[in-house]
């Protein structure tokens, strides 16, 4: 086998690995995961117009956006669809005081520390990272959550930042002069390009 052949095969292997590593098989991007209750964001957000913060109530104050306790579900579902067999796990949870065990869709590795509240405060929309949740009947990831993806924004926040009032607006569309707006908002919101390792790793 010639040197060229070896390089070719080696390079090919690396390319394959790279492709596999970025494929939905590994990243789960676009893959709807099984959940104990087939909860539809599409129905609740787009259909009923419930705000993100009704359920994810600590997104503006804490690192964790917060997962709604069963109580929150039951505040409506003790009245609406109260007998639906699909919602039996929710009622059982409430009855037996046992938590619903959801499957985590956006799962950062243990050595990465992310804070929702500061991103929301600095004008990063929910949809920027989580995609059009209002169009997802079941939840899936639209982004890899790889470090290269985080850094896209941390290096150039002006490309993604939006006015604070639009953060929870799922249908927000970036204007054609996003860069101009972005630069203005970066200035206004005092957004810093935090790329130090210890910002996320500690």
């Amino acid at each position, binding site marked *: 086998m010639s040197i060229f052949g070896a390089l070719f095969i080696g390079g090919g292997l690396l390319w394959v*690995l790279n492709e*596999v*590593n970025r494929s939905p*098989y*590994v990243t*789960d991007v676009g893959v709807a*995961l099984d959940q104990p209750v087939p909860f539809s964001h599409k129905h609740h957000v787009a259909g009923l117009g419930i705000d993100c913060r009704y359920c994810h109530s*600590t997104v503006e*104050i*804490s*690192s*964790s956006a*917060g*997962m*709604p*306790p*069963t*109580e929150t579900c039951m505040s409506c579902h003790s009245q609406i669809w109260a007998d639906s067999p699909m919602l039996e796990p929710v009622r059982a*949870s*409430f009855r037996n*005081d*046992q*938590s*619903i*065990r*959801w*499957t*985590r869709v956006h*799962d950062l*590795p*243990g*050595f990465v*520390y992310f*804070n929702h*509240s*500061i991103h929301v*405060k*600095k004008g990063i929309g929910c949809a920027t990272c989580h995609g059009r949740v209002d169009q997802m009947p079941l939840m899936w990831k639209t982004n890899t959550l790889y470090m290269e993806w985080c850094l896209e924004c941390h290096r150039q926040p002006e490309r993604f930042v939006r006015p604070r009032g639009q953060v929870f607006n799922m249908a927000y569309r970036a204007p054609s002069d996003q860069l101009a707006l972005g630069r203005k908002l970066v200035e206004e919101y*005092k957004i*810093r390009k935090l790329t*130090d*390792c*210890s*910002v996320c*790793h*500690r």
Partner: protein
Amino acid sequence: MMQPKNSLLDLSAIRARLENARGEEYWRSLDEVAQTAEFQAFVDNEFTPGTSEWKNPLGRRDLLKLLGASIAFAGLTACTKQPPEKIVPYVRAPEDMIPGKPMYFATAMTLGGYAAGVLVESHMGRPTKIEGNPEHPASLGATDAFAQASILTLYDPDRSQVVLRNGLISNWAAFLAEVGLLREGLLAKEGAGMRILTETVTSPTLAQQLKDLLAEFPEARWHQYEPAARDSAVGGAKLAFGEPVNTIHRIGQADVILSLDADFLASGPGSVRYAREFAARRREGGDRMNRLYIVEAAPSSTGSIADHRLPLRASDVEPFAWAVAAALGVAVPAPGSPAPSGWVEAVAADLKKHAGSSLVIAGDQQPVAVHALAHAINAALGNAGKTVVYTEPVEAAPVEQGESMRQLAEDMRAGRVETLVIIGGNPVYNAPADCEFRQGLLKVKRRIRLGLYDDETSGLCHWHLAETHYLEGWGDARAFDGTVTIQQPLIAPLYGGKSAHEVLAVLSGKGELAGHDIIKEYWRGRLGEAGFEKTWKTALHDGLIAGTAVAPKNVSVRKDFAAALPAPKGQEGMELCLRPDPTIWDGRFANNGWLQELPKPLTKLTWDNTVLISPATAERLGVANGQVLELRRAGRTVRGAAWILPGHAENSATVHLGYGRTRGGKIAEGPGFSAYPLRTSDAPWGGGGLAVSKTGATYKLACTQDHHSMEGRDLVREATVDEYRKDPHFAQHVVHGPVKELSLYKEFKYEGHSWGMAVDLNACTGCNACVVACQAENNIPVVGKTEVARGREMQWIRIDRYFKGGLDDPEVCHQPMMCHHCDHAPCEVVCPTGATNHSSEGLNQMVYNRCVGTRYCSNNCPYKVRRFNFFLYSDWDTKSLEPMRNPDVTVRSRGVMEKCTYCVQRINSARIESEKEGRRIRDGEVVTACQAVCPTQAIVFGDMNDPNSRVAKLKKDPLNYGILDELNTKPRTTYLARLRNPNPELKKG
């Protein structure tokens, strides 16, 4: 690997070398001065030879199998998917709880019965970290090392988890049934034959419960015993004043302090506050700086910060106290003084000169006479009411516990005890040997024990009940000044344990009451119904009930007390000196890995106790470190390894209690030897007539004093107050650094924050609280004795203890060392993977998931502050330890380097909060774990770019210096040089 240090050092040569030393020479160990092969091995190699070898004998065939397997699996690793994770939300969310944000609750930890207020950090209901309670008089925001480590005891997997009956698993209902029968029998006899044994009780509720029980059973008796009880303080007050008043020191008011063998800055109730007050006066410098004299046998933390320290055998402290008293005209005869000529006169003159602002403190381990004399001297000097205050007793029943135990043991042996209820403590292990507690106990028909561990005592009891940890159950306790704290639980009992209050309620026939109700009802009765709910809530929130400090009391010293005292007898020959251990106390913390692995403040030994002797005594006996000695006193013997401690008194051997446990947890069982067999009720803290002989055996000790050595190089800088007045900048002129601008590396620009730290050597007592606080905050693992001996301890802070001067009476200085976060960090440039690099705020960051474990960084670090995970030291398997960890810090795996991060998780959290409010981080908003816990506030952290920050001001202080500055590493951690305030009248001699 380190060899056992059993070769005889030439101590006379070391002594000569030190005497001829040019100028001030600092040294860490005898091996260093002698430049032994063992010491060289640690210095020459960052990692001691053999460090990277896996000692498990792995055969060639196994190796080949492993190789084959790893090749086969290698290709698969890249395709590993992240394991799926579950989200488990609440069913009904508790009010006020915000996931991701910790909550803090005030409570108190007790040691020896006395409370120290703490704030406990709780993440989603899991207590993870102890902080001091700034409002609490015994804490002022700081804690000691014991409180820091108590979180590990809570989650200790070895804690007792079930009710045991005759050693077999039983249950609480069976115990309730048994108590029903027991009470019937007892009521018929009015409680005759029933005894209750507790440790020191300050809890008002528990005291009331005991009182009620004794009212119901008038023939029953309540005994108190714990080894480190303050019997002499109680006895001394009775002797001097005729009543057992409580003594409170106002250290901050004292200009001159004489400590008679009292380690008042590091142990005992109130020590954390005393340390704060002491350091505050120390820091003022100039004329306001206080002066501390201490006489003691083994050097203590307090001794290491004293201006004058006189090594005296413990039994010689009493004649010394007599001599000082006589010199001050306190009406007592003056027998011969053991102190060198001039000492007593100089000390007495200084005390007299500062009459009204001087203070004499007697050590808890000194006999009653010394306490009475201290009271008499303080009275004569007019210090009472100024630097020392007397109050009603804080303890519910201030008894001399040695006597209480002796009576109980006698009654047990005589068969007069039918039922014994042991609440806490561990008397089978730690009762005085002559009490023969074990033999007595076996004669008791019904033995009931409530304890945290299934220990030596539980092993001999019919019933063992699992006790709640203080973070699991309701309780109350008083601080050194009487202030009451309601202890509130942070978590439901992990193992269904019961508190002492709950067990006493059962014994009183009240059945199963909840601890909360018992405590609350008691206080409702005491404080009255009006406005009670509000008072109760305020007390829980603040961590204390306002206005519960005991009232000061006017007492006068009895004129004739001295006449009643036997003349102190001079001791011939060797003397035994028993002391509670500086890290595991009386043995109660023996199963706590953090405290076991914590280097003792003076010896830097871990995992063991030793027979501490002075170099001259070692020379006379021909003993080297690690040689096993046999100690014989009053017909009782124990064996333990010798350790030569410079500065120890001659002809005296100090042995720490608490080791040699035989039952009570995987960690407790094993290390060290028990000194309790030498402890008798007539001489609880040792005495004369000790025979020491060599056994020929050697014992391997794990000592960290030679690890991470920086080999001299003017690391510690100090001066006397006079020298400081002449040249305030003395510390900055010790070495001549290079021109700062001359550097091959580019300068960093810090536009935002620029973090830095200043450590005040003038305040550091080497108490170790910071080391444990860091361990708790940063999820630092315990590695075990064998690994420590190889130099692999993982603590991010080490406290270097330096000796200065001669071998027999050196001065001591402590220097906490953590990552210096150098601007020109030598570690950063050698990392091949960029795992350690520089942040825009000056932090030297460590990225664990980039680290491949080359260890080049550690090799290149001149401060020797990097720690490598040679094995998977973090316990990833024990379920009970998982909730303990700080969720904001990565739990490291095998093969990565780690080190101090300046608590970057706390910086990040402050940054996020400040940016949300659109402002800069305020000074004091980021407090590192070590800074928060420091009793003397020796550590200050902050933003050096903010000219008004405390740290920026300290960096401009003339005492500020960076160590190894001459290497131009530009460390961000700098030190404030130490000042001493010696008495010019007193030439060292």
